Each structure stands twice: as C-alpha cells, then as structure tokens.
C-alpha cells in the first residue's frame, strides 16, 4: 500500500501535476510532511494513527500560493476536499487527492472524482458508534446536568484555537472571534466567552463538518468537541438529508431551504 502511495505521489511530482505533496510523515504522531521532490516520497506513510486533516493546510495562504498540490486523503479528508470545492475554496483542478483507506491506496482523484469515489465506496460515512454513544449518554442527562457538564468542560478551554486551526472548514481570513466591532464572542478564557466560542465553532460547521475528528484530537485540554459536531451532523442528516462532502456542487445546508423543512417546534 505504502509503495503504491509513494509511487503515485512521485509520479504526480514528476509530471508536474502537483508541485507539492502534503502527506503524513514517517514519524511518531504522524505529523504533516511536505514533499516537493519525487525522490523524497519515501517519507510518506499512512496508517490508522494519522489524526490530522491535511485539507486544513489548504487554508494557509503560503500553501495556496504553491498550487497545484496533492493531499494524502483518507475518506474524511476526501469529504473535506469536496466541501472546500463546493464552497469555492479550491481552484478547479488545483488540488488532487491521494485517496487512502486503512491499508489500501485508492488512487488519485480531483474533487469530482473524490465525490464519485465516496458515493460508490463510502456512501454513508457518519459518526462512529462510540461517538454516538457519548452523545446518547449525555442526552440522557437532565438539562441542568448537561449545562453543568459543559460548564466544567468549557472551563478548561484556554482559547488556543487549536480546534480552529485543525479544521479545514475554519478557513475564514477573519474568524468571528477576531471581529471586535462588535465583539460578539468574548476573547477571555472565561465561562461566557468559552461557551459562546465552542458552541459557535460547532454551529459554524453544521452541515459542513466531515467528522474527521481533527479538532478534538488537536485540543490540548481534551474537550469532547466531537460530541457537539456529531449531534449537528445527525440532526442535519435527519432533517435535511444533509451529507456534507458528497457533492462538489452541493448547496450549503445553512443557506438553502425547503418548504418541507420541519417546524413542529414552532408555536
């Protein structure tokens, strides 16, 4: 599998279809590695310990200035690439995916191809069972207990924004928390700011999150961020049949509507 991946990457560099390959390094923690020479492709690996969503790098101006690039992409990252395409963040044909899954290399795809691959091979990616159990467990608690739970968790947040940096969906050049006239989200790492920040971070991903888990993995304080993402993912799927990352022309869930949308909760 590694062999196939490395060869494909080297080929892309040779043929100048990519000037840079963003992959996972053959090092503890599997950090990102940036390969620009075919002969260096031996440094690329992929296995289950790869936690980063490398699509997040496409938000970096330095890397946007170095297109075309290829990205080593397990299914969740493929979805991110499709979402970024749908949101006009990736110039057509400028980003290729080196699609991988577990111990298989699946080939080189552009956004459209990636979407096709996802629809055929991974038609219903969603939260893992364990994650849904975390959601279910929390949902069982009373409102007061849930509030207390999150008050305690959010109290740990230092506002380092590692979650934001890890997320390909967080590509805004000015994040809402950086807007100070008016300052809707307090930048102090205190109760109110931490609540608003973490809730809005999750909400801004609704209908866009590909459940890659990079935010939670990146959080130095171990906040259960994926629980928030998962509940939104399930709701968007149930209510709007939203499957982010399957259609490069897809309309945003927040930003489109249907007359049939539920409003049973409206009085």
């Amino acid at each position, binding site marked *: 599998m590694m062999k196939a991946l490395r060869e494909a990457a080297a080929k892309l560099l040779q043929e100048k279809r990519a000037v840079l390959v963003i992959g996972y390094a053959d090092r503890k923690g599997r950090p990102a590695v940036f390969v620009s020479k075919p002969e260096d492709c031996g440094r690329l690996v992929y296995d289950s310990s790869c936690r980063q969503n490398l699509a997040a790098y496409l938000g970096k101006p330095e890397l946007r200035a170095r297109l075309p690039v290829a990205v080593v992409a397990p299914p969740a990252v493929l979805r991110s690439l499709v979402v970024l395409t749908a949101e006009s963040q990736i110039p057509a044909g400028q980003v290729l995916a080196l699609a991988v899954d577990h111990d298989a290399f699946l080939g080189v795809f552009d956004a459209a191809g990636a979407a096709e691959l996802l629809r055929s091979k991974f038609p219903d990616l969603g939260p893992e069972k364990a994650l849904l159990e975390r959601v279910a467990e929390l949902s069982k608690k009373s409102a007061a207990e849930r509030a207390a739970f999150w008050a305690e968790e959010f109290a740990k947040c230092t*506002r380092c924004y590692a979650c*934001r940096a890890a997320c390909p969906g967080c590509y805004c050049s000015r994040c809402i928390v950086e807007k*100070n006239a008016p*300052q809707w989200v307090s*930048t102090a790492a205190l109760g109110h700011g931490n609540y608003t920040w973490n809730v809005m971070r999750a909400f801004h991903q609704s209908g866009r999150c590909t459940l890659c888990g990079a935010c939670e993995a*990146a959080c130095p304080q*171990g906040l259960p961020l994926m629980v928030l993402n998962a509940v939104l993912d399930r709701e968007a799927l149930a209510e709007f049949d939203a499957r982010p990352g399957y259609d490069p022309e897809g309309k945003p869930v927040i930003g489109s509507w249907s007359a049939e949308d539920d409003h049973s909760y409206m009085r």
Partner: protein
Amino acid sequence: MKTIAIDRLPDLAQALSKAGYRVVAPVDEGGVVRLREWTKGLALALDAVPVNSVKDVLFPRSEVVARFALEESGGFTPAPLERSAPKTVVLCARPCDAAALSALDAVFNWDYRDGSYNARRAATTVVSLACFKADEHCFCTSVNGAPDGTAGADALLRPADGGKKLVFEALSDKGRQLEAMVSDGQAVPDAPAALKRRFDSAAVGRWLASNFESPFWKEAALACLGCGACAYACPVCHCFDLQDESDKKECRRLRNWDSCGFGLFTLHASGHNPRPDQSARWRQRVTHKFSIYPQKFKTFACTGCGRCARLCQAGMAIAETCERIEALGR
C-alpha cells in the same frame, strides 16, 4: 534528612491545606494531566508532564486588571479591584517549570512592576519534583537546565530508594517553612533521569542573530497551522492582549493570553502585517526565545519542558528546529 514516602504525598498535600495553603498539584483529569487546585481525595499524577505549567498560577490566562462602574449618563468611575493572591504551594511542579520563573520575574518587573503577578509570586511556594524519566520531547539539558534542576524552586523533591521515597530539599525560606510537615528519615537518592544535550543553545542564538532572512524559515514553518497551543502551554511565554468588556453596569479590562503564532498578533489597523505569514511567526517564536530574550534578560525564554512539541497537532518541535539551526551554523 527530610524524606516522605511517595504514596504519602496526598497526606503532605492535606497537611498543607490544613496549614492554610491552597495546594496546586498535577491531577489526571480523564487522561489529561493538569496542574489544578488539589482537593482531598485527588491522586497526584507524577508520570506525565502536565499540559499546563506553574505560569498558570502566577499569570492566569484571563484576568480582570481594571474595573469601571458605568453611570447611566455614560460617564465612568474606576472601581476597586480585589486582587486574589492566596497563599499557595505548587506541589510536584517540574524543574523545567520552576526554571521558567526567573524569566517570568524578569519580564514582569522589567520597566513596570506588575502588581498582580508579583503578589501571586510572593504568595506562592514552588516545590518541584525531580524527573526520574524523560520523554522524547524533553530537552532541559540543552537550555542550561537539568532533570533535577533547582532554579526557581523553593524546594525540591528528589526520588529515592528506587522511587519509593522522596527526599525533601528546602532551597529557600519559603521552602524551609514546609520542612516541619515532612518527617525525618533516611533514603538513598536515585540518579536523576539521564538526558543528553540535544543542541548548543548558545550556538543557536548566534545563528539566529544573523539569519533573520534565511530561506530556512519558509520551509521550517510549513506545517505550523498557527494556533496558540504551544505558547499557552509554554512555562515562559507571557504575551497578553488587553480587551475591554462591558455591560450596562460595568466595564472590565481583561488581560488575556495571546500568542505570536496568531495571524492577528501583529496585524496593524491599516491592514498591514509585518509578520505576514506563519514562517515569519515561527521565526519570531524561535528567535525571541533563543536570541532576543537572552540578549535582554540574560536567560533563554525556553526551559526545554517540551510541552509545545508534545501538544502540537502538526508536529512542530522547537528542539528539532534548534538542532537544524545548529547544523546550519556549522
């Protein structure tokens, strides 16, 4: 000699809180070891380096530094500020945390003596625990530190009898005040963790001073995603941002941690940013720690605790950067 059985540390903590101290100690919270206020029943987690450092105790991540009462008319009057500097013992800090204190003292007493920092500093006793093992991110020995370093600490707990006991060494008056709570006894100190020097920090400093424009930076910072995890975990990083928050009744001026890794950090109102990309920011981080700061305060702004690398999602490791810089210097 003063000793304590390692499994009796909670009793020491209990004794300290009985004596009126707020005890801060490393506690495992769902897999994350964090320095936090110790309460009866909590076990101390001594194996891992905590995600936060003693810095949190002296320089909280968000702190109200001024209050103004707002009048109906829109006028305002300064309101009294209750400064909280409780008598505190940080139990089982790391020598690399303690070592950071001289650097923090320097900056918080440089031209302006920072009231709230100094108040807390005065009220805090740091009892560090010598490391009996080091991980791949540790590099204190490369920045003039040691696994059993005493710099900045009021007392040191040195593992003994194969880790069963701890020898209590008072290093200051504050430390000596605690001696009474530790019983006499004999023990054979263990050898501290062995950690070989990874780079010559002086050489790194020299290269930095003259390679501001080196192409090295462009590629060295490619992986950095620009979050603040490293700066916030760092026992020395001390940059902050002042923010005013107000409601109908009151305006509060808050001092919040900030990080040179953020794009906004140096963004001018004009829209110009002298550190336009992540490589410029990473260069700043490294240069500040190993060149600028030492020139100003005669001490590195890094103690080799390795937290930044341990917590970085993108595998940015300042020690590795220094190793490569040293190589470039040769």
